Structure formats: C-alpha cells, structure tokens
C-alpha cells in the first residue's frame, strides 16, 4: 500500500513539473527553472524554522516568494549590473543555495526532516509515514494532498491562461501588440514553478525537481510539434519515470528520486534515438540545422 502512495506522490510531482517544464523548455528558460529550484532552499529553511513542518501552506507561499525573488535578482544582475545572463543565473542560484545549506547546518542540527543531503534528493519513501489526520481519521499521506492541490492549481493556471501562455511563448511581440502583458505571464509562470518546487521539495529534493522539469518535456519535444500533445506526452513520461524510478530504486536500494531522474533520462535517450521525426536512428530527413552554441 505504501508502494502505491509513493508512486502516486511521485507521479503527482512528475506531472506538475512536466506541465510547467514544457513552457520553460519552449521559452528557453530551462536554466532559470533550475535556478529557482535551488533558490527556494533558504526560504524553505527559514519558513521551516517557523512552522516546524514541511507541509504548511505558509511554507509554500513564503518559500515560493523567495523563488520568485530569485528571478528578480537575476533580472537585476542582468539588466542593471550588466552581467551576462548565464553568469547572472549562476551567481544568483549558487549563493542562495549556499545560504540555504549554511542555514541548515547552523539551525537544524538534529532535525532529520531537513538535513543537507535530503535537500538534494528528498526522501519520498517517508511520505506514507506522514498521514493527514483530521479528527482522528487518516486521509492518506499529507504529501499526496499537497501535491494534488498544487497539480490542480497548475492545471487551472494552464487551462485558463492557455491562449496567453501560448502566445507569450511563441510570439511575444504579437502578444505585446495585442495588449497581453508578457511580464505578468512570465512572472506568473516563474511563481508557479517556484511553488511547485517547494511543494515537491520534500519528495524529490531541490536538484531532482530540475530533472522532472526539463527531461519529460524535452522528450515530448522530440516526439511532437503540437503543444497539447507535448503537454500530454510529457505528463505520461513523467508518470512512467515515477513508476520506473520506484522499482529501479527498490532493485538497487538507492534514492528513489535519483532513480526517477535516471529513468526520465533513459526515456529521453530512447526518444533521441527513435523519434519518428528527429531520432538519430529512425528519422528520414537528416538535415542538420546548426544550433547557436553560445547564448
């Protein structure tokens, strides 16, 4: 039974990340997603010190705000200090993450819930051990409820804002001309990524959220040209990664989150080789388009 809960939590995390990740990959903001997932750490630690629990809404909002703040910081470095964008991203997330690790080492010494390595790869295996108990009745693991809530919010965000997200992703100039604020949608998206990262944090940790944010969407990107299909395929890849990852981890007795990203990577590798339109081994037209190397 706990197996089911773990896989369910993993799937919820994977689908949430995959959906948002599609937009990140299409907007060429994959590394900003990476940066946010690192940057939320100090927010989580500080909020944890107040709330003493990794599941509270307050933690979600507070730490999410820090993640969003990281995007502003990156902009600040890039636009006002005239730092090149890759360095702006690199400097911001490394120092925020370092801050988070220091805070953990200083203030949560004995807490098993939050130790340095856990923040990297989480411990999804613990989720069945933390059920939501209301009036003495257990409703299943808290993590499942939190992630389900997050997934519903994300699904709502994407469906209500579908046209605007679509347009600001593929043709920002037209979007601006039509009066759609690209900035609003950009920051909303980053905010959504931030909150998802925080919510997923307990299950898969900071760094592996990135794997789920980028890899399933990249796999889907190789398999389709249509955005709705891409969203669907990456969700499916996410779920497969969660299931496959669990069993792989059980088999070699390792971190479940690590296994999930390994499986996600494997699925990407399969798509790389066998994609009908772009696979290395199966595609017919092999015109190699030179992609810009430097940003």
């Amino acid at each position, binding site marked *: 039974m706990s197996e089911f809960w773990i896989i369910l939590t993993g799937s919820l995390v994977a689908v949430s990340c995959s959906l948002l990740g599609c937009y990140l990959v299409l907007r060429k903001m994959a590394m900003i997603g990476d940066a946010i997932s690192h940057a939320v750490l100090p927010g989580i630690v500080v909020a944890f010190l107040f709330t003493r629990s990794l599941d509270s809404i307050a933690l979600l909002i507070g730490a999410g705000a820090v993640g969003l703040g990281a995007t502003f910081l990156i902009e600040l470095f890039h636009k006002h200090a005239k730092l090149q964008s890759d360095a702006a991203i690199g400097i911001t997330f490394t120092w925020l993450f370092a801050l988070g690790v220091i805070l953990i080492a200083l203030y949560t010494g004995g807490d098993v819930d939050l130790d340095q390595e856990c923040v990297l790869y989480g411990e999804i295996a613990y989720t069945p051990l933390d059920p939501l108990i209301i009036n003495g009745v257990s409703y299943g693991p808290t993590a499942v409820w939190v992630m389900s809530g997050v997934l519903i919010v994300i699904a709502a965000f994407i469906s209500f804002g579908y046209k605007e997200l679509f347009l600001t992703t593929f043709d920002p100039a037209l979007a601006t001309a039509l009066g759609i604020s690209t900035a609003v949608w950009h920051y909303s998206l980053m905010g959504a990524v931030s909150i998802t990262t925080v919510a997923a944090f307990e299950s898969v940790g900071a760094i592996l959220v990135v794997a789920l944010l980028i890899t399933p969407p990249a796999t889907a990107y190789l398999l389709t040209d249509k955005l709705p299909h891409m969203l669907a395929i990456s969700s499916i890849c996410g779920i497969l990664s969660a299931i496959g990852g669990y069993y792989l981890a059980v088999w070699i007795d390792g971190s479940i989150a690590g296994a999930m*990203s390994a499986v996600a990577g494997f699925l990407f590798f399969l798509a790389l080789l066998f994609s009908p339109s772009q696979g290395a081994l199966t595609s017919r037209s092999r015109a190699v388009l030179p992609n810009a190397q430097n940003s």
Partner: protein
Amino acid sequence: MDSLVEFISLSDANVRYVALGSAILGASSAIVGCFTFLRKRSLVGDAVAHAVLPGVCLAFLMVETKNPLALIIGAFITAWLALVSIDVITSKTRIKEDAAIGLILSVFFGIGVLLLTSIQHSGMASQTGLNTFLFGKAAALVGNDVLAFGATALVLIVAVIAFFKDFSLLSFDKHFALAIGYPVRMLELLLTTLTVLAVVIGIQAVGVVLMAAMLITPAAAARSWTDRLPVMLVLAAVCGGGAGLVGAYISTVAPAMPTGPWIVMTVSAIAVVSLLIAPRRGMLARALQQRSNRLQILDENILKALFHMGEHDEQFLAARSLSAIQRQRRMLQKDLTRGLLRLRKQGYTLNAADSWSLTGEGLERGKRIVRLHRLWELYLTQYLRIAPDHVHEDAETIEHIITPELEKELEEILEYPAVDPHRRIIPQKS
C-alpha cells in the same frame, strides 16, 4: 579571534595543508572559469560539475576503495560524456542549449545520487566520506592531496600561459580563428579538459553542487574591474584563492560544517561588491555617469533655449525670465533653476535676480549645439532621405554627442550649407 590568529600563523601543519590546498583549488578553477565566462558557457561548467558525481561513484564501485586516481579518472569520463552529450543534443536535435544543459546536469546528477545512496545503503566500510563530494570538506585535505593539487594547478597554469593567445582568440572571436585555420576543435577540447581538471580537483573543497560558483563568480567579479584579460585572470585567481582560504579557516574552526557553502558565500559577496563599486563598469559608477550625462544634456538644452529666444528677437544677450524660458522649452521648474545655477558657476550664464542671460561663452556653446542640430537634420534628410518632419527627435539626442571631428566631416559632406531642412539658418562658427 584566537583561532583566526592561529590560522593565519599557519603553525599547525594540518592547517597549512588545508589552507594551501583550498587556495590552490579556488585559484585554478577561477582561472579556467574566466575562459568559460568569456565564452558565455558558464552553465556548462555547472553541468560538468554535477556530471562528475556518477563517475566518482562508478569508479568507487569498480575499485572498492577511495583510490584518488581511480576516482579522478571516473570523474573525467562522465564529465566528458556529459559535455559530448550536450553538444550532440544541441547540434542534432531541436532542443536548445539551455534545456540540454539542464537535462544532462540533472539526469547525470540523479544517476550519481542513485549510485551514491546505493553505495551508502550497502554498508561498505570504505564508503564513508564519499558524500563529502556533495558539499566539500576542505578539512579532509591532507599533505598528499596538496601535492596532487599543486601539481595539477601548475599544469593548468602552464597550459593557460602556453596557450594564452589561442584561448583568448577562441574566447573573443571564434569565427575569425576558424577562418584563419586555427585548430579550433582541438583548442576547445583542451580548454574543456582543463575545465574538467579544475572541477575534479575543486569539488574536494567546494563539492559538486556548488562547484559552478567557483567557475563563474570569481570571473564575474574580476570582469567588473578590468578590460584586460591577463589582469582579469590574476584578479579572479586572487578572488578564488582568497575564498578558498576563508573556507579552510571555517573548516578548522567548525570541522563538521561543509566548507563549500562558505566558500561560495565569500566569492558571491566579493562579486556583488565588485559589481557595485568597480570604477567605470560598476553599478554606482555607471549611475553616476548617467546622472552626469543627463545633467549635461539638460544644461545644453537650456543654452539652446536661450539661443533660440535670441534668434527670435535678434538679441542674443538679453535677459530672460524663468517663465519665458519655460515657454520656449518646457521643463520642470526645479530642473531649470538648478541648471541655470550650474551654468552660472561654469560661466555660461549671468543673472540679475530672476532674469537670466547668456554670457559670451554661453552664446558660443548654445550656438554650437543649435548648429550641430541643424547640420544633423540636414544630413538625415539629404543622405538618409528621411522626411523633414521626422528628423527633429533624432537631432535632439545626437546634438549633444557630436565631436568636433564629426562636425568637420558633416560640414564637408554637406558642402558647408547655409540652411537646414526647415529653412532656418545654420549658425556659422565664429
């Protein structure tokens, strides 16, 4: 305080090793990081650092001890694999570089974490301390390590000096290098090998997760201070080495603390301060320069306004009231009064109570600005065929930055004209 003194005196042999080792690590990764920074491939360095983890774990699984040579070779192999994969993905599929980097980074790291946890759970006695690769532990450095690092750093520095010309060209103008037949692929190979080398030795003190900072941040800090590459390399090395020392100090005072985050906080602080206060390129310096530019433009516009008023009634040196000036050219009252005061201090205006007039020098300067404005308008209409009602805005900005040399050229091209597109007389130089 005592511990600080004790640290600086380097009396304890262990402290010496840790300090020296950390400083060398910091300095060598900073030097290599400068080139990745200039090539705008900083985040690839991040991917390399993360990709090292599975290699270290695989090597450990194969030799079953923490043999440093084996671990380094393992690290090298997976780091290389990661770089090659990023290249292949970027060039052969529609996936862009940022997604390729993020993907490889996280998947390789995930595999590394999987292997690491598997090793930890297996209970192999020799595996303790393998996880110091995650966040670094400078305190674990011993004499042999320092020798190894010193040698590696020496190799790195020698390579950078020997290939300095080539790496510079590669960083600043890769296409030119290709065009003149440089073996660019080989040079890139060499540079990335050096990067991997720096990463592999750097993760001992800083750890895998934060290694990227040691490549990027010292370079960014150094860049603020200079435009010259050799100076940038030295500054970056000092910054990285200094931060390494700070990390070493922390590890002697609090051995249980991971050193990586402290080193990163140090370099980041140095970088932020540099970005703020560096002369010319720093935020403060640029803000001050922009303010100075803005005020100069404002002052010149005031002189221009006074000149225009002089053109109307043929009395260039007449005294004008503030409201009259504002009717001629709209501007905020306080901008106008402050500007007039500045101009008076510099000798361009005079006043009697609230009536202001141009001095001889003010007249000349105002005349020049108007002249440049009209010359530029004429140039735009004649040479760029822009309609006369579209040229005013452009001239309003350019008039303040045309140099005397450019002025002379304009005159020659336009054949010493007398009137502008709006049939106003172009004031001649007196």
